[in-house]
């Protein structure tokens, strides 16, 4: 699925959100997530299409962007704040992706949650994902549709 429409949308949305709200630049797709301790967050969205969206981000990168978002020094950022910011990042990128996937359509986004199960998103049917560089680390975005969207994964 390399080069798919959705991967392009992922890059545009990650760039838009991370640059505007987290003051962090995003670089082109990298093959593997950077860092060992990864934080995973995901949410369910309803609408047309419906499915799940998630991100994986290195813990160190999560700390950097949380500090930037909250205006704190990295050493001051608590684990709870990192989780809160990563969930908010998930929410905003998902909203941005869906607005590009189906402009004008109504979606309902459920509350994002930290969930280690999404480490296995590659095993899911109808899944699309991409990993980008950000702040000396990486962010992986993935989306699993309840029903296949051929135009998006072409």
């Amino acid at each position: 699925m390399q080069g798919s429409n959705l991967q392009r949308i992922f890059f545009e949305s990650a760039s838009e959100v991370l640059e505007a709200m987290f003051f962090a630049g995003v670089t082109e797709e990298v093959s593997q997530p950077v860092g060992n301790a990864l934080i995973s967050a995901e949410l369910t969205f309803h609408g047309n299409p419906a499915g799940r969206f998630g991100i994986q981000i290195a813990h160190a990168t999560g700390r950097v962007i949380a500090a930037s978002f909250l205006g704190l020094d990295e050493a001051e950022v608590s684990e709870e704040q990192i989780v809160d910011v990563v969930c908010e990042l998930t929410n905003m990128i998902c909203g941005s992706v869906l607005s590009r996937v189906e402009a004008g359509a109504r979606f309902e986004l459920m509350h994002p949650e930290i969930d280690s199960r999404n480490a296995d998103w590659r095993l899911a049917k109808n899944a699309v994902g991409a990993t980008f560089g950000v702040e000396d680390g990486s962010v992986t975005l993935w989306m699993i549709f309840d029903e296949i969207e051929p135009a998006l994964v072409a």
Partner: protein
Amino acid sequence: MAFSILIVDDSRAMRSFVKRVLHLSGFEMGTCYEAENGKEALNLLDREWVDAILTDINMPVMNGEEFVQSLAAHESFHTIPVLVVSTDRTEDRVRQMIALGAQGYVKKPFQPEELREELEKVLEVAYAGK
């Protein structure tokens, strides 16, 4: 003139971000109150007066739609200008929230200046000539 505001969002991080960018953007902010959802915000408004409200839509307990409707129907709170701040970017949703009683709508992600400008715009309209 410094304005007191109420930020309603279930994300503590987002409330903190909004408060910070308003401050950094030069908005003249007085007291800044926070609430996690519409119900908590209504309880707070029973005790404190604010000049403007910034609210998310997707929240547990009482969401932004129900909250804006409650404000519009309230004999005192209906005069408080409301700015919706949401990840929902559809024009349909924007129209719906304005029809329910919101005065402005900012889509996430936003630039700090954009948030300040929209907030100042709804304040200017609400308090022009007062």
